């Protein structure tokens, strides 16, 4: 296809605008990274923009020697990992029968699922119900409310529906039970959808804030997001610590280092996030 000058100009200028937009997406991140590696005096003089000024690791030494932040990190890590495994099992278990015509109550159960998308229970009775179950100040509140979601259930059900029925029929004739068919035949060939849905759950649990802020008062049980909010919101002693003479960090550099600390895990798995989330967005738009 031959491109005219006008076409080139058009596409060139749009590309330029998009590059600017991409920069806007990244600049705040560069800024916070720069701040995390800058010296106290540079931070106090407000001269840190996109590159560290007076490069130092002192904020990091302080942050990484804080047992509290590691504790919160571990709580988030452990709850996210166990929660994701649990969520995948429960979602697969629920989605599989719902993808089968032979399962007669399926239609009714789907109505129950859709019902939860239409009418959202008010927050206060939700809070009271979970508190009565003993989930207040209980680390399980970071896991149990997230082990199934109507959206992920729909994605998996759609995927299972497209699974070739002949393969399952053949296994049945060979005397395979339905549990064995699910575990030995269906799930092993569903790795893509399991990865997608698993990452959806993992990001939700890692980033969650509403449940911990409602249910967790005990600072020893804070997950990472709560800890970060506590640290950067002045509710901490960052301001006091950095007033002490001869340290090379300030409230600003410590907050920045904390934020970077929480972003690193997401950036590390970002290639997979991008790949599988795109897949999920496509799957989610096709209903079964």
């Amino acid at each position: 296809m031959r491109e005219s000058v006008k076409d080139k100009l058009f596409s060139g200028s749009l590309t330029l605008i998009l590059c600017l937009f991409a920069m806007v997406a990244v600049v705040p991140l560069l800024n916070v990274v720069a701040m995390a590696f800058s010296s106290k005096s540079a931070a106090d003089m407000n001269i840190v923009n996109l590159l560290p000024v007076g490069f130092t690791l002192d904020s990091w030494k302080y942050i990484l020697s804080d047992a509290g932040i590691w504790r919160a990190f571990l709580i988030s890590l452990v709850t996210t990992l166990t929660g994701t495994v649990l969520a995948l099992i429960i979602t697969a278990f629920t989605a599989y029968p719902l993808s089968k015509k032979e399962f007669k109550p399926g239609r009714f159960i789907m109505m129950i699922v859709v019902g939860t998308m239409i009418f959202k229970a008010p927050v206060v009775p939700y809070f009271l119900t979970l508190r009565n179950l003993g989930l207040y100040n209980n680390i399980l509140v970071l896991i149990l409310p997230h082990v199934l979601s109507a959206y992920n259930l729909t994605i998996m059900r759609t995927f299972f529906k497209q699974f070739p029925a002949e393969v399952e029929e053949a296994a049945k004739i060979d005397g395979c039970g339905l549990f064995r068919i699910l575990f030995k035949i269906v799930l092993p060939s569903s790795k893509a959808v399991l990865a997608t849905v698993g990452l959806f759950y993992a990001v939700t649990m890692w980033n969650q804030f509403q449940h911990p802020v409602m249910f967790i008062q005990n600072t020893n049980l804070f997950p990472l997001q709560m800890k970060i909010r506590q640290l950067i919101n002045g509710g901490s002693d960052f301001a006091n610590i950095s007033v002490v003479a001869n340290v090379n960090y300030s409230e600003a550099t410590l907050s920045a280092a904390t934020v970077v600390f929480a972003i690193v895990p997401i950036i590390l798995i970002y290639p997979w996030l991008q790949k599988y989330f795109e897949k999920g967005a496509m799957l989610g738009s096709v209903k079964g």
Partner: protein
Amino acid sequence: MKEKKKNSFVYDIKKYWPYYVMVILGLVFFTVFKYIPMFGSVIAFQDYSVFQGILGSEWVGLKHIKSLLTYPDFSRIFTNTLVLGLLKVVVVFPVPVILSLMLNEVKNRHVKKAIQTAVYIPYFLSWVIVGGLIFDIFGVGGLFNNIRSFFGMNLLLPMQKESWFRPIYVISSIWKEAGWGTVVYLAAISGIDPALYESSAIDGASRIQRMRYITIPLLIPTVLTMFLLNIGSFLELGFEQVYNLLTPMTYSVGDIFDTYVYRVGIQQAQYSFTTAVGLFQSTVGLILVVTFNKLANKFSEDGGLW
């Protein structure tokens, strides 16, 4: 006949019993975490006391619903919720549509991929992080004020200013979610038959004309469906976003249903009244979702949520 039906049901359970076992956990989940709280909403019609529970608390009928409508706080949070919801539909919604139209015109695949990689990142950060970044950027010594002082302007702290809360809400929504929002539209665009573009190019159509007469008309159904679903979830502004951008100085414009219910209901333990507030919100939400989902289904076969 009836006997036969019953028998086939028993036969079904015998044959497919593993299916029945598999769904048990899912059913328990929906019962405990969705339906019990839904029925727990009856405390909106009681003077609920934690010690007496739902069964022992006194029934007061519509007392809380009535006081809600005359309560000055209520009209404030209702207005705030409406304004932010409108801004989200009118200002934030079109951004990913425009971005994906633009992305479609980027010729170099690697440049396109790089732009996508950059604009998707913020979507994966939590609102705590995004809130922290926004407070940093707009704080003393943040980029915003560094740029202002470069141009000789005074220090300005938008996070503490009422008039800035709504723009900040819009900016943060766009920054975090607009990039990711392009995924759906780009998928729709990539589904357009390339033959259309080829034949129009042979006829001498420019890139602008191809966008105007092929891409945009064929993208409109997707946009409209997304738009209807968006209006359907109008009241769901996201507790996490607003809570992490709010300061006591901006309550008057930024306090919405979700933050109000959290503060007054859960922190100050006014359970019955805030359940009435929540019930109002859920009911309006129900009407909106059902109506607009119906419209979305009418408009395109597979458009609605269900």
